[in-house]
């Protein structure tokens, strides 16, 4: 139990401090500092996973995949908190609606949001996983609404309703998986570990139906086409640090849920169904997102659609059972996308608009930001030498080795369209005629977090060697620490 308690101490501390509106002045910096401590703490806590091979039989525990995503989630949250320490206080003078109380409440909810995401990753019980996932929806819905504009409110409602309904199907699916165990004497279980051992003896029809319903539910949360409808609205209307966490951490949580269920189906000998559903769904999501990226008017909306595209690629990785590549690409996508959302937040603050029509000449106004935005867009489009290139390349290679030629072809087309669309939009923002005046001088320090993240992505691209892949392969397989 100790490890799990240590994991949540810092987020809980931030959440509790947020209850005091007097903390408004110093809380952003303190929270960022605390999260910078949290990151090494999490890495230290999950490291033992690599030396374990036992199974996790209890309800909450860290397995290999959980460990990898705990680190990614914490990294994303740390980056978001660091940028928030600069961005949110700078925005406050223009937003009279955000009182001290509402401002510190934001930190309370963000702390709880992180804990809920940890809950999804730690859950080794389908029921707990569902509860934590619904909790992430409820908490993050209130975060999207932070700016208190009409559009943000509308996006909040859409997100709350669509994701709750979607995830209700996942609950029905989870119950069906329990009901599928009627062929085995005794009560049904929700423990993943026990389920894996029993999977082969379960009623295949109910198990398959349960998996499909869970995919529908968690797929809504992950933003699979055509269930992605809420995603661009929520991710673009939320404040930048929240957009970063929604895109870089929450989507991963939903995908981890799908990964766990596909592992269960693998144990039941239903691999065919998984690949039959996930591979086309992934490919269609990629191409649909690519086509929607062509016509974009809004910088943050563009990154949101790009997230949908990467969810498609990750789904494909799950579909062909490429566990290590799923982790690798999720890490690469999170690094770059968080950098881009945080940059978009800064640019939004500088220009007072996120409409692509009004954003011009960034390279003149803020040369460092402009350079980073350009580098980040090349990275998100999957260009070498960034990490996204190598993980997309490996996923495509494995797709072809799995004889999914059509899916590979569709994804390559989608990636090509995305690259052209994204670079085209971003080039207009970076170059073009600069506005005669902007709201204020750009702060050099605001470029720090995105720059570090892009550097990580660069390192992740250059570091992919056979030992790293074998490490990731081990992570995707190990049972982990039972707590």
């Amino acid at each position: 139990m100790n490890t799990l308690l240590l994991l949540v101490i810092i987020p809980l501390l931030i959440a509790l401090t947020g209850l005091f509106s007097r903390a408004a002045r110093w809380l952003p910096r303190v929270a960022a500092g605390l999260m910078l401590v949290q990151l090494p703490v999490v890495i230290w806590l999950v490291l033992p996973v690599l030396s374990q091979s036992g199974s996790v039989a209890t309800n909450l525990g860290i397995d290999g995949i959980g460990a990898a995503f705990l680190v990614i989630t914490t990294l994303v949250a740390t980056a978001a908190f660091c940028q928030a320490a600069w961005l949110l206080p700078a925005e406050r003078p223009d937003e009279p609606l955000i009182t001290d109380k509402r401002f510190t409440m934001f930190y309370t909810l963000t702390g709880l949001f992180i804990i809920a995401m940890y809950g999804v990753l730690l859950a080794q019980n389908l029921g707990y996983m569902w509860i934590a996932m619904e909790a992430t929806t409820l908490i993050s819905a209130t975060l999207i609404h932070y700016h208190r504009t009409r559009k943000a409110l509308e996006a909040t409602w859409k997100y709350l309703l669509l994701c709750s309904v979607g995830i209700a199907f996942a609950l029905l699916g989870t119950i069906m998986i329990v009901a599928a165990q009627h062929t085995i004497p005794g009560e049904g279980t929700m423990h993943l570990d026990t389920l894996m051992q029993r999977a082969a003896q379960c009623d295949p029809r109910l198990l398959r139906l349960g998996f499909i319903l869970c995919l529908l539910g968690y797929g809504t949360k992950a933003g699979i086409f055509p269930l992605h409808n809420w995603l661009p609205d929520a991710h673009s209307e939320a404040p930048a640090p929240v957009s970063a966490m929604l895109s870089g951490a929450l989507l991963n949580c939903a995908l981890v849920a799908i990964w766990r269920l596909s592992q269960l189906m693998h144990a039941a000998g239903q691999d065919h169904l998984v690949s039959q559903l996930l591979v086309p769904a992934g490919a269609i999501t990629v191409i649909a997102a690519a086509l929607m990226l062509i016509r974009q008017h809004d910088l943050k909306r563009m990154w949101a659609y790009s997230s949908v595209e990467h969810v498609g690629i990750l789904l494909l990785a799950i579909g062909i059972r490429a566990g290590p590549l799923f982790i690798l690409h999720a890490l690469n996508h999170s690094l770059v996308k968080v950098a881009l959302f945080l940059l978009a937040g800064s640019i939004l603050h500088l220009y007072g608009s996120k409409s692509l029509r009004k954003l011009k000449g960034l390279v003149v106004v803020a040369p460092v930001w402009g350079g980073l935005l350009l580098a980040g867009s090349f990275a998100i489009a999957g260009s070498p030498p960034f990490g996204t290139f190598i993980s997309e390349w490996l996923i495509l290679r494995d797709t072809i080795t799995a004889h999914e030629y059509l899916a590979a072809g569709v994804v390559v087309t989608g990636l090509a369209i995305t690259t052209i669309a994204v670079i085209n939009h971003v080039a207009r923002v970076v170059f073009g005629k600069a506005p005669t005046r902007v709201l204020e001088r750009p702060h050099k320090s605001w470029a720090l977090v995105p720059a570090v993240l892009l550097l990580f992505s660069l390192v992740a691209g250059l570091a992919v060697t056979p030992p790293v892949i074998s490490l990731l392969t081990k992570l995707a397989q190990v049972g982990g620490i039972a707590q």
Partner: protein
Amino acid sequence: MDYSWLDILAASAALLGVWMCGVIRIRTLLAGLALQVAAMAGITLYIGLVTHVTHFLILAVVVLLVKAIAIPWYLAWAAKQLETREDRGVTVAPTLTMIIGLAILATCYFGASFIAVPSLGNVGAAGMAAALVLLGMLLMIGRRLAISQVIGFLMMENGIFLYGLTQTPGMPMLVEMGVIFDVLVGVLVSGLVIFRLNRSFEHIDVTQFRGLRH
């Protein structure tokens, strides 16, 4: 006629669902919802009495208190504050929705064995559970006001609860409680958002929200 109490209660919950598809007044909708949840609590109690497992008795009490009393009461209070009395539906008239609902109920009645667990002997209830999920969706699609959509969602949730109750030997208590807690918080949060929607837009008609369309 050897129908058990369980079947009668499940069928009446589903019939209530069909009836609710045709109801216009919000307060009546909420009364229907409360009755439906009461039927769920009744089924839980019945199973508890038959199997002699205390877990079901506790669950029945919690369901009754939270989902049959607290949630409908909160939503009725919200509706009163918002001064919304009626929801006349989107394009399909509520009476027509009711007929679609009947068709759904019939389909689920005959298709029940597809999703039922035969060894537990509650095949009919599985069909009613599926019908409740679909009727809840129908209500959500067919209505204009944000508050009616919450009611539709709760009806879906009732269907899922009924399925879990009748098609498994019993879900873990902690999971059941977690789900009920999530539903409660979900209703509170959506109530809060509805109040804010009403303040910003001066209505809660979801078909009129156009800000995010391109």
